[in-house]
C-alpha cells in the first residue's frame, strides 16, 4: 500500500497498532478462559476444584485465603465450609473470616448459621503446591484488610459462596469483579458436577450392593427361581432351579427361545406344562402352586415340582409394561413320597378293616332277620302294642343302629380306599341309568335311622330325575354330605335334601341348621384330611375325607360342588350332575 501523505500513514499505523493491542488482549483473555475452563473440566473431585479455583484466582489477585461455603441438604440445614489458605493463617484471622462468611451468608438469605456453627463445619484444605512461593507467613495479622464474597450460582440457583480474604486493604479490584464472578460460575458448575458425580457414585454403589445382596439371596434360596422375558424365554435361573431342571439336558437359560418353542422342539413332556404356566402368567394371571411332574416316566415317585408364577411389570404400581414372568419352583417330591406311603398305609388298613366289617355287617343282618321272623310269629298271638314291648323289638332297634353305624363305618372305609384311587387317578365310574330321587330317598332313609334326634326332609322339586351316572358313587356323595350335615347340626335340628332340575343337569342341595363355616375355610373345605379348626368344631369327630371324596366323584361325573354358609346359622352344600355324562367325562373305551 502506498500512503499518499504522512498523516494518512500515521493514522493507518495507529489503527493497526490499536487493533493489534486489542487482538493481543483478546488472545490473552481467551487463553486465560481456556486454561481456566480446562482446569475446572478436569477436576473430578472437590479438592481438584479447590486447586483449580485457587490456581486461577492467584493469577488475578494476591490473597491470604479463599473459602468455599456450600449449602448441604436443606432438610438438615447443613453446610460445608472449605478453607483454602495461601499460607498459614493466625487463629484470630481465621475467626474473623468465618464471622464475615456467616454475615454474608445471611445477606444472601442462606439458612441461618452462626460463626460458631460454621467453625465446627470448617475443613482446612491447604495444597502445598499452591502455597504462594516465597511468601512469609504473616505473623500477628489478625484483622481482615479486604474481602470479597461471590455467590456460587448454577442455573440461577445459589449453591454456595466463594470468599476471598486478604490482610491488606484494597486487595480486590472492582475491574476484576466481573471476571471473579465468572470464575465463581465455573467453580460452581464444577462443584455441582462433583456433587452430582458423588451422588451418582453413591447411588451406583447402593444399587450394586443391592444387586449383589439380591444375587446372594437368590443364589442361596432353596426354592428354584426362574425369570423369563416378555416372550417367555428364560433369562435367568438361580442355582436351585438349574439343579432341579438339570436332568432335562436342555440349554434353558439365555437361549432367547420362548419356552413354548423349546417345548415344541423337545420331547420333554413337562416342558409344555411349564410353558403353559409361563404363558398364563404372561397373560396377566397369577398361577399358584401348580404341580408339575418333571421326573422320568415309570419312577415310583417322580420328581414333582410345585410352581407359582406371576407377571413381572416394569412398575408394580401402575402395571404398565410387562417385562416377563417370575416363577418359583419348589421340589415337592418328598411330600409326594410321604403321601404315597400314607396312601399305601391307608389302603392296607382299609382293606384290613373291611374284612371284619363285612363279617359284622353279615352277622348283624342275620340276627335282624331272625328277630324279625320271631316277631312276625309273635304278632299272630299278641296285640301290636304288646309286640313293641317285647325284648326282641328292643333288640331289633339296637341291631338297626348297629347296622346303620356299620354302614357309616363302611362308607368311611370306602372313602379311605377311594382316597388312594382319587389320588392316583384310579377312580373308575360304573355308569347306569336310574332315578336320582330314589337314591336320595334311600340315602335319607339310611341317614334317618342313625340320626333319630334329627329330622331329615327330602324335597323333590323336579318332575323327572332320570340320570346316567354311577349309582353307588352318587349315593356315596349324598351319604358323605348328609353325614357332615348331621354331625355338625345340634340335635333336634332339621336337615333338608332338595333336588332341582337345572337345564341339562340336576342340582342337589343339603341344607343344615348347624354351626356353619367361616368364608376363610371355603377354599380348603374340600381338601383331603382338612378339618375346620376352631373352638366350635373341635368337639366333632371325623377325618376330613368325606367332602374330598364327594368332590372327586362329582367332578369325575362332570359336575360341580360348592357351599354357601354363615357361621352360626348353618350351611348349604350344593352339587350338580349332568343328566347324561359329558363326552369328556366318559372313560376311554
Amino acid at each position, binding site marked *: 500500500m502506498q500512503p499518499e501523505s504522512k498523516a494518512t500513514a500515521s493514522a493507518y499505523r495507529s489503527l493497526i497498532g490499536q487493533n493489534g493491542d486489542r487482538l493481543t488482549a483478546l488472545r490473552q483473555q481467551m487463553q486465560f478462559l481456556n486454561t481456566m475452563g480446562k482446569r475446572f473440566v478436569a477436576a473430578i473431585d472437590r479438592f481438584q476444584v479447590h486447586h483449580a479455583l485457587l490456581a486461577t484466582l492467584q493469577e488475578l489477585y494476591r490473597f491470604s485465603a479463599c473459602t468455599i461455603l456450600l449449602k448441604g441438604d436443606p432438610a438438615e440445614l447443613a453446610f460445608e465450609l472449605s478453607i483454602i489458605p495461601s499460607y498459614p493463617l493466625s487463629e484470630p484471622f481465621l475467626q474473623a473470616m468465618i464471622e464475615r462468611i456467616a454475615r454474608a451468608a445471611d*445477606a*444472601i438469605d442462606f439458612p441461618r448459621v452462626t460463626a460458631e456453627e460454621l467453625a465446627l463445619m470448617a475443613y482446612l484444605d491447604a495444597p502445598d503446591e499452591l502455597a504462594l512461593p516465597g511468601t512469609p507467613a504473616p505473623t500477628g495479622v489478625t484483622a481482615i484488610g479486604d474481602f470479597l464474597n461471590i455467590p456460587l450460582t448454577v442455573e440461577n440457583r445459589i449453591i454456595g459462596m466463594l470468599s476471598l480474604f486478604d490482610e491488606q486493604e484494597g486487595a480486590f479490584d*472492582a475491574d476484576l469483579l466481573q471476571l471473579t464472578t465468572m470464575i465463581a460460575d465455573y467453580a460452581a458448575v464444577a462443584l455441582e458436577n462433583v456433587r452430582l458425580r458423588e451422588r451418582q457414585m453413591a447411588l451406583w454403589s447402593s444399587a450394586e450392593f443391592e444387586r449383589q445382596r439380591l444375587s446372594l439371596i437368590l443364589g442361596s434360596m432353596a426354592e428354584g427361581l426362574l425369570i423369563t422375558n416378555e416372550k417367555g424365554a428364560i433369562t435367568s435361573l438361580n442355582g436351585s432351579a438349574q439343579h432341579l431342571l438339570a436332568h432335562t439336558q436342555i440349554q434353558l437359560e439365555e437361549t432367547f427361545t420362548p419356552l413354548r418353542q423349546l417345548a415344541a422342539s423337545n420331547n420333554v413332556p413337562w416342558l409344555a406344562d411349564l410353558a403353559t404356566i409361563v404363558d398364563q402368567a404372561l397373560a396377566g394371571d397369577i398361577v399358584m402352586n401348580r404341580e408339575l411332574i418333571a421326573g422320568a416316566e415309570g419312577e415310583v415317585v417322580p420328581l414333582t415340582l410345585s410352581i407359582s408364577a406371576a407377571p413381572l411389570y416394569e412398575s408394580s404400581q401402575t402395571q404398565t409394561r410387562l417385562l416377563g414372568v417370575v416363577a418359583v419352583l419348589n421340589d415337592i417330591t418328598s411330600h409326594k413320597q410321604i403321601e404315597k406311603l400314607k396312601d399305601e398305609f391307608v389302603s392296607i388298613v382299609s382293606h384290613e378293616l373291611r374284612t371284619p366289617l363285612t363279617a359284622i355287617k353279615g352277622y348283624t343282618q342275620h340276627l335282624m332277620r331272625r328277630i324279625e321272623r320271631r316277631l312276625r310269629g309273635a304278632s299272630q298271638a299278641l296285640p301290636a302294642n304288646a309286640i313293641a314291648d317285647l325284648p326282641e323289638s328292643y333288640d331289633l332297634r339296637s341291631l338297626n343302629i348297629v347296622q346303620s353305624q356299620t354302614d357309616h363305618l363302611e362308607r368311611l372305609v370306602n372313602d379311605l380306599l377311594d382316597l388312594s384311587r382319587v389320588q392316583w387317578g384310579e377312580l373308575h365310574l360304573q355308569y347306569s341309568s336310574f332315578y336320582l330321587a330314589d337314591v336320595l330317598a334311600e340315602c335319607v332313609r339310611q341317614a334317618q335311622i342313625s340320626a333319630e334326634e334329627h329330622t331329615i326332609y327330602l324335597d323333590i322339586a323336579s318332575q323327572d330325575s332320570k340320570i346316567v351316572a354311577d349309582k353307588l358313587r352318587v349315593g356315596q356323595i349324598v351319604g358323605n354330605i348328609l353325614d357332615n350335615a348331621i354331625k355338625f347340626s345340634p340335635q333336634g335340628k332339621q336337615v333338608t335334601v332338595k333336588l332341582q332340575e337345572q337345564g341339562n343337569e340336576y342340582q342337589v342341595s343339603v341344607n343344615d341348621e348347624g354351626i356353619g363355616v367361616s368364608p376363610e375355610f371355603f377354599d380348603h373345605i374340600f381338601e383331603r384330611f382338612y378339618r375346620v379348626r376352631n373352638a366350635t368344631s373341635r368337639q366333632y369327630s371325623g377325618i376330613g375325607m368325606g367332602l374330598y371324596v364327594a368332590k372327586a366323584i362329582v367332578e369325575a361325573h362332570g359336575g360341580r360342588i360348592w357351599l354357601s354358609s354363615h357361621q352360626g346359622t348353618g350351611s348349604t352344600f350344593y352339587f350338580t350332575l349332568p343328566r347324561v355324562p359329558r363326552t369328556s367325562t366318559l372313560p376311554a373305551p
Partner: protein
Amino acid sequence: MLMSPGFGQSSSAYQEKVTEAYLQAIRTIDDRVTPFLGKATTRVLIQGAARRVSETYPFLHFLEKMPYTEVVPSVVREQLGGVIPQQLAAGLDALLQECFAGLKELTGDLIVPPLHEEVRRQLEQMP
C-alpha cells in the same frame, strides 16, 4: 427518604408513588449489581433484606417470596393498602438500606458507595 403526602395528594396515590420510587431504586441496584454478581444474587439480596426488615415492617413480608419485579400497582393495593404512608416510606427505606448492607457484606466498598450515591440522587429527584 421521601416526604409525607403533600397538599391535594390522596393517600393511595402517595402510596403508589412511594412504592414506585423505591421499586425504581431497587431496579437501579439490580441494573448495577447484576452484571457483577448475576441475577440470582440480586434477587436473594432483596429477599434477604425483606426477611430482615419484615420483623419491624411486617407489611413487607410478601417480598420475601415474591420477586420485586412482580410488584405491580394491583399488588401494592392488595398488600400495602392499609399501611400508613409514613410507615410505608420508612419500611421501604429500611429495605433499601438493608439491600446496601447486604451488598456491602458481599463486596465491601467495591460497588456500594457510588451506587448508594446514585440511588440517593434518584430518590431526591422524585416528585
